[in-house]
C-alpha cells in the first residue's frame, strides 16, 4: 500500500464570467508515493502544485480522478487524524497567540489539556518560536507565521505530512532548520510530500521528485536516475599548455570546447563518450600540468528548465477538444 496515490487526478476551474470556459489547472496526475519517502513536487509558478495539495486535502473537489492517502479516500476523518498540512502562505487567527492556536488544534485531535500544552510548547521550541509564542498572531511576521504553520502541521505526530512551499518566507537559518526537521521526520519514518520551486531544497532532501508544468506531469523519478542519464561529460583544467599543443590536441582527441582561463591555462570539455585518460596523457607529454578533472553533471536546474520548456503550454480545453 502506498502512502499517497493519485489516479488521473484532474481539476478544471471555470474562468470568464460572460463566456465561462474551463481552465486546466491539473490534468490527469497519476502518482504513487511510498511510505517513508521524501517526495519533492516541483514546478514553476502556476504549475498546479498548490491545486494538487488542496485536492489531496479535499479543500477543493476534483473534476475527475481519484486520490487516496494511507489507503483511504482523501477527506476521510480517519485520514485527517494521521496527516499534517502546511498551507501555502499560512494564515491563522489574528486573535489567538501561537500557543493558543496549537493547543486549539491539538484539542481537535482529542488530546488532554496537559498533552496539548506539552505538544504546543515542544513544537514551538522545535520550529524556533521563543517568547513570541505569547503574542497574538496578528503581530507575527511572515516567516514566524510560516514556522507556526509548520508546527501546527506536526501537532498530531503525523504519518504523512504535506508542506506547500515549506521554505517560503524563511531566512537562511530558518531554511536550514526546516531542512533538518524534514530529515528528522524522514528518520522517524514519516512520509513527506512537499512542493517547491527551489531546486536546491529538493536536491538536498528528496528521494524522488515529480516535475509539473502547466498542469501536466512532465517527469518523475529518483533524483539519481533523472540526473544520471544526463551526465554531460568531463571538464579538465590544465596549465602550462601552449597554443600549438592545444591546437594539436583539439584536432585529434575530440575536445568539445576549450575556454581560456589565463596565460597557458585552459578548461577543456570532453563528451561522456571520450575517456579523459588519453587526452590527459597527451597533454602531460606536451608539458602541461593537470589542475583539476571533474565529471560534468547536469544540475536539477538544467533538467528542470529543459523539461518545463518542453511542456505543452495549452491550458484552455477548446483546442484540445476539437
Amino acid at each position, binding site marked *: 500500500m502506498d502512502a499517497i496515490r493519485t489516479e488521473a487526478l484532474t481539476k478544471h476551474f471555470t474562468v470568464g464570467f460572460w463566456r465561462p470556459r474551463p481552465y486546466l489547472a491539473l490534468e490527469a496526475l497519476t502518482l504513487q508515493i511510498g511510505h517513508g519517502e521524501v517526495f519533492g513536487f516541483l514546478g514553476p509558478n502556476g504549475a498546479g502544485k498548490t491545486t494538487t495539495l488542496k485536492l489531496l486535502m479535499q479543500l477543493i473537489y476534483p473534476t475527475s480522478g481519484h486520490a487516496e492517502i494511507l489507503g483511504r479516500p482523501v477527506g476521510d476523518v480517519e485520514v485527517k*487524524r494521521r496527516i499534517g498540512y502546511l498551507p501555502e502562505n499560512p494564515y491563522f487567527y489574528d486573535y489567538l497567540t501561537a500557543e493558543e492556536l496549537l493547543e486549539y*488544534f491539538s484539542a481537535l485531535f482529542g488530546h488532554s489539556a496537559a498533552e496539548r500544552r506539552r505538544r504546543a510548547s515542544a513544537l514551538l521550541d522545535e520550529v524556533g518560536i521563543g517568547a513570541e509564542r505569547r503574542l497574538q498572531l496578528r503581530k507575527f511576521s511572515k516567516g514566524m507565521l510560516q514556522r507556526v504553520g509548520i508546527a501546527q502541521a506536526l501537532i498530531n505526530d503525523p504519518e504523512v505530512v504535506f508542506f506547500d512551499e515549506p521554505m517560503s518566507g524563511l531566512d537562511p537559518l530558518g531554511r536550514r532548520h526546516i531542512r533538518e526537521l524534514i530529515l528528522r521526520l524522514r528518520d522517524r519514518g514519516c512520509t513527506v510530500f512537499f512542493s517547491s520551486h527551489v531546486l536546491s531544497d529538493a536536491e538536498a532532501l528528496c528521494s524522488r521528485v515529480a516535475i509539473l508544468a502547466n498542469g501536466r506531469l512532465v517527469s518523475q523519478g529518483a533524483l539519481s536516475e533523472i540526473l544520471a542519464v544526463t551526465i554531460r561529460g568531463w571538464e579538465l583544467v590544465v596549465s602550462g599548455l601552449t597554443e600549438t599543443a592545444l591546437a594539436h590536441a583539439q584536432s585529434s582527441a575530440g575536445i568539445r570546447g576549450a575556454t581560456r582561463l589565463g596565460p597557458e591555462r585552459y578548461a577543456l570539455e570532453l563528451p561522456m563518450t571520450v575517456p579523459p585518460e588519453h587526452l590527459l596523457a597527451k597533454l602531460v607529454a606536451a608539458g602541461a600540468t593537470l589542475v583539476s578533472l571533474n565529471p560534468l553533471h547536469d544540475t536539477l536546474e538544467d533538467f528542470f528548465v529543459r523539461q518545463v520548456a518542453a511542456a505543452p503550454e495549452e491550458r484552455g480545453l477548446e483546442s484540445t477538444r476539437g
Partner: protein
Amino acid sequence: MRAIGHIAVNVFRESVRDKVLYSIVAFAVMLIAVSYLLAQLTAGQDLKIIKDLGLASIATFGLLMAIFIGIGLVWKEVERRSIYGLLTKPIRRWEFILGKYVGLVLTLLVNVAVMTAAFYAVLAYQGWGVDELARRAWPAPPMDPALLSAIALILVELMLVTGIALFFSTFSGPFLSAVLTLGLWVIGHFNTDLRNFENVVESRAAAWLARGLYYALPNFDTFDIKAQVVQGQHVAASYIALSVLYGMVYPALVLTGAVAIFSRRDFK
C-alpha cells in the same frame, strides 16, 4: 461531536476579544441606563418607558450582534484561508458549521444576559421605595418575571437570525449577507400581511404564491410579545412553547441548507 464544542468555544473567544462587540454591548447597557433618565421626564408612564426601551434595546442590539458576527463567521475563515488549517484537522464540514453556530448562540446568550442584568438593575432602582399607591397604578410590577419570557423569545429570534446569517455567509460576502439577512428580517415582520393577501386579491395564482411565501419565509412576528408583557397581559405558555419550537425547527432547516452548500464548495 467534541470538535463542535472546541470550535464553538473558539468563536466565543474570538468575539470576546473583538473590540467592536464590546462597544455594541457597552452602548446597549448605556442606553438601558439612560432609559431611567428619560422615564423621569414623563410622569406616570415612567415604568412603561423603561420596559419598552429596555426590551427594544436588547432586541435591537442582539440583532445587530447576530448579523454583525453571523455574516463574517464562515466568510472570514474562507476569505483569509484560516479554514485550510482548520478543515484539515479531523473534523467534518458539518461540524465546522454547527460549531460556528453554537459558538455564536453562546456569545449571544452571554451578551443578552449582560444586557438583561443591566435592565433589571434599572428596574430595581426605579421600583425602590415607591409607595403602595403608585405601585397599584402600574399594570405590572417593576421586576416582572414575565419580562424574562419576552427576553427568552428575543433570544430564540436571534438564534433564527444567526442561522440565516450563517447560511448566507457560506456562499456570499459580508455585505450581501447583511443585506439579505436584514431583508429577510424586515419581510419576516410583515409576514402576517402575506397571510391576509389572499383576502384582497382576485388571482388564484397570486393567492397561492402569497400563501407559499407565508410558510416559506421566517415569521419574526411570532417572537414579539414585548407589548403584551409590558402591558401586563398574560401570554399563554403554549404560545411561548410553540414559538420556541418554531425557533428551533426553522434554524435546523436553514443550517441543513448551509451544510449542504458548504460541504460541496471549493475553497479558492
